[in-house]
């Protein structure tokens, strides 16, 4: 309760600061300008990225990233002086998110997108909201703990993911003879592990825990090994609009400082609606502290 109040104070404080420079803010931001003209903010979301961004039973998008985006939209309402600003939800996939951001269809993307330097050429990111990395899921008793144990075995990888890149790089460095089965999405990768087409499935550890929690026999599977890659997630915003990006970063920094961020985190991850049961890691906790920039 105390935290919540602090959060409100922080946000209204931020709103107060923003109010001072409001006119200039909208003028210097093409994204805010078009949101103001349309009276609608177009929020890109994923459909099955549990628990970051997914369609609930009621058909509405929800999740950790979606909650964070709603906080940012509150601030956009203040900046565009439009308390009735509507949210239009636009479902995106890993194939459409960049194109839709580039052609102006979405104003922010709330999913589970890894922030990396190559991608910065095309889009901008707000502060890091989650940290994960590549690990292996395998059947208990298979004797697999690290990637080195996979020599001569079959691993399933999701097409075009940062995990695929990481696994192939490490395997090449170590001269491991691993057979790859490429899959289209996480559940198919999981199915390949379940039915024995593959001995392990490599993905972001948070997603692996999510898959295990949703599988029919959660006790049969394990997530093991060291992190084979570093994947910080961030909310995507259009390229080259520093005013707009700052608006989002201010909201996130305020929440990180007030502790509201961790509360939202706990709602979704500890144990969360899908019983994923991932208490905040020390790395992410530190990341929140580091990114809680002062005003």
């Amino acid at each position, binding site marked *: 309760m105390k935290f919540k109040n602090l959060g409100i104070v922080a946000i209204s404080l931020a709103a107060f600061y923003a109010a001072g420079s409001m006119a200039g803010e909208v003028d210097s931001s093409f994204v805010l300008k078009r949101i103001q003209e349309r009276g609608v903010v177009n929020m890109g979301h994923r459909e099955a990225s549990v628990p970051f961004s997914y369609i609930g039973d009621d058909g509405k998008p929800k999740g950790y990233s979606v909650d964070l985006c709603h906080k940012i939209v509150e601030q956009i309402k203040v900046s565009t002086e439009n308390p009735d600003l509507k949210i239009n939800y636009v479902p995106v996939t890993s194939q459409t998110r960049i194109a839709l*951001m580039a052609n102006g269809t979405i104003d922010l993307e709330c999913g589970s997108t890894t922030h990396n330097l190559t991608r910065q050429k095309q889009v901008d990111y707000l502060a890091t909201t989650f940290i994960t990395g590549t690990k292996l899921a395998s059947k208990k008793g298979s004797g697999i703990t690290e990637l080195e144990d996979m020599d001569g075995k079959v691993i399933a990888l999701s097409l075009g993911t940062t995990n695929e890149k990481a696994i192939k790089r490490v395997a090449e460095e170590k001269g491991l003879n691993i057979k790859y089965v490429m899959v289209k999405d996480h559940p198919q990768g999981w199915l390949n592990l379940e039915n024995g087409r593959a001995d392990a499935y490599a993905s972001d550890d948070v997603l692996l825990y999510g898959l295990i929690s949703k599988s029919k026999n959660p006790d049969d599977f394990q997530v093991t090994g060291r992190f084979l890659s570093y994947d910080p997630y961030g909310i995507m915003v259009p390229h080259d609009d520093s005013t707009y990006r700052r608006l989002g970063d201010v909201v996130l920094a305020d929440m990180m400082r007030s502790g509201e961020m961790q509360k939202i985190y706990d709602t979704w991850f500890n144990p969360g609606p899908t019983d994923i049961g991932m208490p905040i890691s020390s790395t992410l906790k530190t990341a929140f502290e580091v990114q809680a920039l002062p005003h």
Partner: protein
Amino acid sequence: MNYNWDWGVLVTAPYFGWIISGLGWTLAVAACAWLIAFTLGSIIGIMRTTDNPVARSIGAGYVEVFRNIPLLVQMFLWYFIFPELLPEAWGTWVKRGIPLPEFWTAVVCLGTYTASRVAEQVRAGINAISLGQKQAAMAIGLAPMQVYRYILLPVSYRTIIPPMTSEFLGIFKNSSLALTIGVLELTAQTRQIEEYTFQGFEAFTAATILYITVTFIVMTAMAVVEKKMAIPGMISLGAK
């Protein structure tokens, strides 16, 4: 457009190689699947025009099953469910024993699916031949096999060249669905490039141009064939 164009990415290693290898897999899947589709489709199509009720119903059943389930779903069924229906040792062999399991699954799936459509074309072609030809053939004492061999098939295959070209192009384009079971064909490779570089528009443009080029070559070749094969006495471009 708020997009950072970089066409250079298409000719940069390793992406250029990915596109070429993707095109190679697309052509390989399409060619192998077409062999199945054409052979099986012709057999099924002919079965549906014979007088034998058993053959007719087998043919009809085949067509109904394979054309009434979306290809995407069939791909999934072949890949994930079919091996589980086999005895365990065979299932394991299909899943891990054969070289390139994804490739062969995609080929079988696309081939059997397109066979149902080819069968319909063949049947329509044979049925479009006027009854008089068949009667004339039987009147001069040809056996049923001979009627098909010398009269019905030569005529019908010539009239169905345009739709058969469509079917072949269909298989070529539908091969893009093989990516859903992990075959790294052209569309899959462009998606890979998209994910790695975030330069999706460039990659998709390259794929579009490649698809159009291959199709154009096939269509030009088939237009020549169509003209050569046109049957005098029917309305057709060739006869005009």
